[in-house]
């Protein structure tokens, strides 16, 4: 395999990987505040891109993406307020089942609103055939958008969690909900906020990938599985680990095409998920001690 080919595979892998990582980070934010896996995370990605595509019919690209992200964020809040907040005994299992139900509900609603057609936002710069030459490889400018926007979101999230009071409150809830409550933090509001945040980043990710992967009512399921794999691979709850896990999985997937039929690409990620769950349930970058403290 030549250097050029090697780099081209790396580029393709990083593109997939970053998308998976964003979905995984969405999982992590909610997991940290509630201890549950929100299986409707993929649906946030779908809603973001579908709403943006519909809005793009009446307004320019940027406002439609911003508005779609905000709308999706409020849908996230609404879901939490309607289905999670008032639960009297919010056991982890119960909440997980609720999110699975919600993901099916959202998907079916999307099907009846938008139908089955495949849609897409236009390319942000250039068009379907434009490509940028970087060193020895050629990629679509949209790939740069995906990588740029996603890395930007990760950086902003890191800043938010480490340097703002609100972010620290959310981390406090994640570390120890009871102690956080004793310190006067309204944990319920933090849970709502976590749903809003993960809906927001999911929606933005959905918009930037839409030109590349197209959007369809059922695009969320596949992304959720990949995102979940990445979250487990990196170690649940850690956003930077999710980024690392995402890029590892993306690159593995893209190189797998070289060695075996590409129809097995998805089998790779499931196989990795199983191996990690058996061998190292705390993930590549997670610690066993931290895992032991978690309910799930």
């Amino acid at each position, binding site marked *: *395999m*030549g250097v050029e*080919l090697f780099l*081209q*595979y790396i*580029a*393709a*892998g990083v*593109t*997939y990987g970053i998308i998976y990582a964003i979905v995984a980070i969405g999982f992590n934010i909610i997991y940290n505040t509630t201890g549950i896996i929100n299986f409707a995370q993929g649906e946030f990605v779908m809603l973001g891109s579908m709403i943006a595509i519909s809005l793009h019919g009446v307004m320019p690209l940027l406002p439609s993406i911003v508005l779609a992200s905000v709308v999706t964020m409020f849908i996230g809040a609404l879901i939490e307020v309607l289905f999670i907040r008032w639960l009297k005994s919010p056991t982890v299992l119960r909440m997980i089942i609720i999110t699975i139900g919600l993901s099916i509900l959202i998907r079916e609603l999307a099907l009846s609103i938008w139908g*089955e*057609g*495949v849609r*897409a936002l236009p390319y942000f710069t250039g*068009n*379907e*055939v*434009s*490509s940028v*030459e970087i060193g020895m*490889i*050629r*990629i*679509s400018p949209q*790939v740069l958008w995906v990588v740029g926007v996603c890395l930007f979101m990760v950086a902003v999230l890191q800043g938010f969690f480490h340097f703002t009071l609100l972010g620290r409150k959310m981390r406090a809830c994640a570390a120890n909900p009871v102690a956080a409550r004793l310190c006067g933090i309204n944990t319920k509001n933090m849970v709502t906020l976590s749903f809003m945040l993960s809906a927001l980043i999911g929606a933005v990710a959905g918009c930037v990938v839409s030109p*590349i*992967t*197209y959007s*369809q009512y059922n*695009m969320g399921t*596949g992304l959720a599985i990949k995102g979940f794999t990445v979250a487990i691979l990196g170690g649940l709850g850690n956003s930077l680990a999710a980024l690392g896990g995402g890029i590892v999985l993306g690159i593995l*997937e*893209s*190189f797998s*095409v*070289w060695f075996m*039929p*590409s*129809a097995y*690409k*998805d089998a790779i990620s499931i196989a990795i998920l199983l191996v990690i769950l058996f061998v190292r349930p705390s993930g590549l970058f997670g610690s066993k001690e931290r895992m032991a403290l978690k309910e799930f």
Partner: protein
Amino acid sequence: MRVISRVFLLLFLTVFLVTPVMASDTIKIGAILSVTGPASFLGAPEANTLKMLVDEINSKGGIKGKKIELIIKDSSASPEKAISFAKQLIEEERVFAIIGPSTSGETLKIKSICEKGRTICISCAAAERIVNPVARYVFKTPQKDSFAARKIFMQMKKMGIKRIGVVVGNTGFGKAGKAQLEKLAPEYGIDIVISEVYDKRATDLTALVTKLKAKGVEAVVNWSIVPAQSIIAKNMRQIGFNVPLFQSHGFGNIKYVRAAGAAAEGIIFPAGRLLVAEELPDNHPQKPVLLKYKRDYEARYKEEVSTFGGHAYDALMILVEAIKKAGTDREKVRDAIENLKGFVGTGGIFNFSPKDHNGLDIDSFEMLTVRNGKFVLLEK
């Protein structure tokens, strides 16, 4: 148990054969189409076409005074659903004939059911195996895969292409196409350097096209009926891989061209003449049929016609033609279809025979290309 079930089967068959099929004054025609689901781009225009034609026929007084009663079942491209609908249509509804299914996978699953139920089935799916080996009651209207493959190879020969890469989606259509391409390539002196199957839900094929590029192929053939047809075109151009891209006859829907945008330009594929009806010379026998169907469909549904709806048009019109000739006896109608010659449809001019339940020859395909976002004849 087996004996009892055999007896029942025998009893059932006798009742079936002895009872006059048409007791009422309507002709019941069943249709199993993927109106929703992953193959809705096939099934939806097919269902629309059937509704439009049946309305038109009934408003003119039906066939020989009998109106058509159309029962459309939506299988959403699931072979399991197609099987249960086929049984329901044959055993409960006792339909005169079945039109569809839309996909090859489904048709192959219900082939034997129609055979046992002695019910005429005119499939709208492409795979050659539907009519080869010939099943007595099973016909199909789309052109055979092998003709599409031959047309592609003939074009490649003209362009001096020798080393190619083949990629297909993992559907019944894709796999059947891969088999045909691999079988026929040596005849045309073409070397398939690499042959790959991708997941039908794939959303990005950059890694796959990178592999093709590394193999140094002179052209790529993609054989699928899924949105990946547009994705592969985009991904190839994005990594700067500019060899000719050939697609199968599954590309015959302008929506794929729109989805691929600028990347669709120059894609070469075989298709029936429906997509280029206006461009045909005025003396072409298919031109009036194609133009009428196209105008009627587009006026009624406000969307562009696709070759897939045309397959349903051909299926129903062939059946109607045979009923006009042979009355409403199912066996006679079956014979009439088998002996139908020179029937002008949207897919081509059909000449059925006991050995050929498709009836189209290789000339029913034209090579088309995409220019300025529109389908045009490649050579003109």
